[in-house]
């Protein structure tokens, strides 16, 4: 019992010390803080690894979440170097407040797809099928890009759907549908690709679909603007673009 107390008491200062010790940049390591929309999780993870290999001395750290949450963090002064949003509206929030170093660029696009449980047991084939009141349909709140895009698509198709829950971000929708809790949702095509066939995608006709544009920008207060630019350049390079398309994104 006593030994355990000693161990724990010793661990706490050690952990605190190493936490403090890791934030200021040593001469050899730079940490790049990239705030990115949740839908970019998988491609960015791989991009990070590839980038670190090409740029020894730079470590890429990702903070993923709903673009609306991330925009708010940046507005409140979070120590981000790069911000990659899933829509232009949330990048605008940051840009209009003069928080970007230079103008943002579109580095990828996406489009929407209906997702249902593997095997499509309820036989959902179109947006119309989502209007069934007994169907459990989930989306996100309209501030989160996917929520806004979904509303746009449904409006274009002239279809009215009542959601049963507003999740926090696109991953929340994926979780609910993949686990069988929700019957259907609308997410990015890239999510369907990344899901590794845990869910089934149902196509939305192009005339109703939207193009989601992903802008990326360097934060004005960043201390690592050079590395940030290099990261963006990497994403725009053929290698980076190939990585993104591999995960279901499209070139801008």
């Amino acid at each position, binding site marked *: 019992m006593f030994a355990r107390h000693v161990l724990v008491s010793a661990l706490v200062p050690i952990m605190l010390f190493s936490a403090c010790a890791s934030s200021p940049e040593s001469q050899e390591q730079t940490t790049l803080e990239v705030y990115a929309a949740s839908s970019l999780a998988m491609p960015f993870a791989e991009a990070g690894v590839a980038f670190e290999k090409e740029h020894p001395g730079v470590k890429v750290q990702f903070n993923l979440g*709903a673009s*609306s*949450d991330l*925009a*708010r963090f940046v507005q409140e002064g979070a120590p981000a170097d790069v911000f990659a949003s899933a829509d232009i509206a949330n990048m605008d929030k940051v840009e209009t407040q003069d928080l970007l170093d230079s103008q943002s660029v579109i580095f990828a696009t996406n489009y929407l797809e209906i997702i249902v449980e593997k095997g499509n047991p309820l036989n959902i084939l179109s947006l119309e099928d989502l209007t069934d009141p007994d169907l*459990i349909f*989930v989306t996100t*709140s*309209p*501030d*989160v890009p996917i929520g806004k895009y979904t509303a746009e698509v449904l409006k274009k198709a002239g279809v009215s759907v009542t*959601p*049963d*829950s*507003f*999740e*926090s971000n696109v991953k929340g929708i994926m979780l*609910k549908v993949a*686990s*069988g*809790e*929700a019957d259907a949702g609308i997410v990015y095509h890239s999510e369907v690709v990344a899901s590794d066939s845990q869910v089934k995608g149902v196509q939305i006709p192009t005339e109703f679909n939207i193009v989601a544009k992903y802008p990326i920008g360097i934060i004005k207060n960043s201390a690592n603007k050079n590395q940030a630019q290099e990261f963006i350049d990497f994403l725009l390079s053929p290698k980076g673009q190939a990585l993104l398309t591999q995960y279901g994104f499209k070139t801008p």
Partner: protein
Amino acid sequence: MRQSPRHRQRLPWPILAIALLAVAFILSPFIGLLWRTPWSKFTDIVSEQEIRDALWLSLKTSLMTAIVCFIFGVPLAWLLARVNFPGRRFIRALMTLSMVLPPVVGGIALLYTFGRRGLIGQYLDSWFGIRLPFTTTAVVMAQCFVAMPFLVLSVEAGLRQLDTRFEDVARTLGGSRWYVFRRVTLPSIKPSLIAGLVLAWARALGEFGATITFAGNLPGTTQTMPLATYAALDSNPESALILSLVMVAVAFSILIVLRDRWLGRADQGLPL
């Protein structure tokens, strides 16, 4: 009462200073909240449908939770305090675990147990057609999961402090177990019972992580005040402020009312 000479000594200032810092730390966010509140728009925002929905839902579900916690928690507390059954330590540890667990983890656990494809949920669905996620019932379940330990542990502590000889006397006078419990035990533990109920209710009112993960987030059905506040943060920060203030006011006023009426003497050595 004559003041003893000790009271006349000056208060030790280091302790006073540290205590004041602690008070300042807890107090300042509330002041910050009051300072940023758009008072001119207060009535407009408060009367918005979504806010009224959230407020009503929160009150409804948290009261329901308090009742459920009472009905199930008191017998469990009694068992833990009075009966030496195998696994008693384990159950008590479980209660403590539930209290320190991050609520989101609780929500995930609930989802995978009572969700449509969950361990128990799948049978609820296939046998009874009961689907829990996305319902108000799920909100109460999530709240109970996080709040019940507070009530159980508070009541258990109260029961342990109780002299069991009173119950012995009552039994010899002819009181059935239930009669003795109702007329002797419960009244004697009133302070810890009330304290436990208030703690559980307050915890339920503030519940966020488990609710949003298990019950979902839909205005009117599952969007309680904390969820509504979080949702408003991005789209409508002023609403978020007002909601926060309303929550503080509701909690504060109920605690004041309860304190005067029921908790009476502060010298009973309870958290409230």
